[in-house]
């Protein structure tokens, strides 16, 4: 069974339909990249996966648990899905180490010492151990995003969602974040990534999903996506972003 199963999901903002019959699966250990022009609904779709955005039609299951079901304990399910945001969303009033510990302590009930130790382990992994006592505002964008990844990992997630993790970064900081993500993918983490980084997609993605106007118009393996001729819209998109 797929780790993440999106089936026939539609979503409306009032009368405006933002997602139309979206279906895709992510198997355990699989890395999929979702791309597409802005306003195509990629960020909305990924936020539906952990119910930060509600959807009106279709089903999404994560590890067999239904996301849209009102009976589902959503906080519990979310605690098992890591999420990384475009604007990092570290908690600015807490130090880096407290950012890493708070979820573990308040949600998983880990004692402070254990939460701190685990936080440190992941902070070390993203190469930022020395910054533990600082506040997020004192770090660069790339460093903040690496802390955000470490924060998500410290909850021992079964899957990770990335919502344009490098879009808010200066070009020279993109690599340091992508390196962490590549490493994570190689370790076998199940990942769903909304990104325009086609280099990342080529390196580690198993599949590429292309969205346009709220629909999934391509869903194929990486080689198919970059190799054989695609639909007109995807070709146009690819030619534009690969030139940049």
């Amino acid at each position: 069974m797929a780790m993440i199963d999106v089936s026939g999901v539609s979503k409306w903002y009032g009368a405006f339909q933002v997602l139309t019959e979206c279906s895709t699966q992510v198997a355990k250990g699989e890395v999929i990249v979702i791309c597409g022009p802005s306003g195509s609904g990629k960020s909305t779709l990924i936020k539906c996966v952990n119910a930060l955005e509600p959807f009106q039609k279709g089903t999404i299951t994560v590890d067999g648990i239904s996301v849209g079901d009102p009976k589902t304990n959503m906080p519990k399910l979310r605690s098992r899905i890591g999420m990384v945001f475009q604007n990092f969303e570290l908690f600015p009033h807490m130090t880096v180490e407290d950012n890493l510990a708070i979820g573990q302590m308040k949600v998983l009930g880990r004692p402070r010492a254990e939460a701190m130790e685990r936080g440190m382990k992941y902070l070390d992994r993203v190469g930022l151990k020395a910054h533990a006592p600082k506040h997020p505002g004192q770090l660069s964008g790339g460093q903040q995003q690496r802390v955000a990844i470490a924060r998500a990992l410290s909850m021992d997630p079964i899957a990770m969602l990335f919502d344009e993790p490098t879009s808010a970064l200066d070009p020279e900081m993109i690599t340091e974040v992508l390196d962490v993500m590549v490493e994570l993918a190689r370790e076998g983490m199940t990942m769903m990534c909304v990104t325009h980084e086609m280099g990342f997609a080529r390196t580690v993605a198993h599949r590429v999903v292309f969205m346009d106007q709220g629909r999934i118009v391509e869903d194929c393996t990486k080689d198919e996506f970059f190799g054989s001729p695609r639909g007109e819209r995807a070709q146009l998109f690819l030619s534009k972003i690969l030139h940049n």
Partner: protein
Amino acid sequence: MGGDFDWAVIWRSREVLWSGMLLSLKLFAIALTGGIFFGTLLALARLSSWKILSWPATGFVNLIRSIPFIMAIFWFYFLTPMLVGRITGQQGEAVGPFTSAVVAFILVESAYYSEIIRAGIQSIPRGQPWAAYALGMNYWQAMGFVVLPQAFRNMVPIMLTQAIILFQDTSLVYVVGLKDFLGAASKGGQLTGRIVELYIFVAVVFFLICFGASWAVKKIQAKYSVR
């Protein structure tokens, strides 16, 4: 008349003045605590997507903010005993003027504070509660650990400004016969016939407290604006 002030009257009236000041401070402290506590709940209710919470909260805040403060104090003094009397079927004064003033102050202040707190919560980017929820926090955890601490931090200066206004407003309780600081001076003035000196003293004390607090607010503002 010019020049024959008797400033010693302040010292002679010190007991009544002090007890008035105590009443003012007590009312201020209770109204401030209650106002911020219930104001926070009201703000959360107003921002709720559940209409069953947001509509009554909005209605309450708009109602309270549209009536003069002094009227609310009156209302609760005369209306509460009547209502309690109707419900319990017993006649007589159910609550004293202090209790009814406290209720009125908490209700009015919670309406004013809820507007400040609502603006504070709305100033926090939407991604912050999202990040909290994504970690698995529930609503109260996301609010308590992530949103409200940041919101309150942004709100400190304006909340203190509101507190200064609240302190001045405690003098309104004279309408229900309570002896706050101003009321005490008034009473002392009647007993000694030296009302001018006592009123000048009251003005000076109010000025010092409120001006000092405003100055402190400015200092705090300068400190907190650097993030």
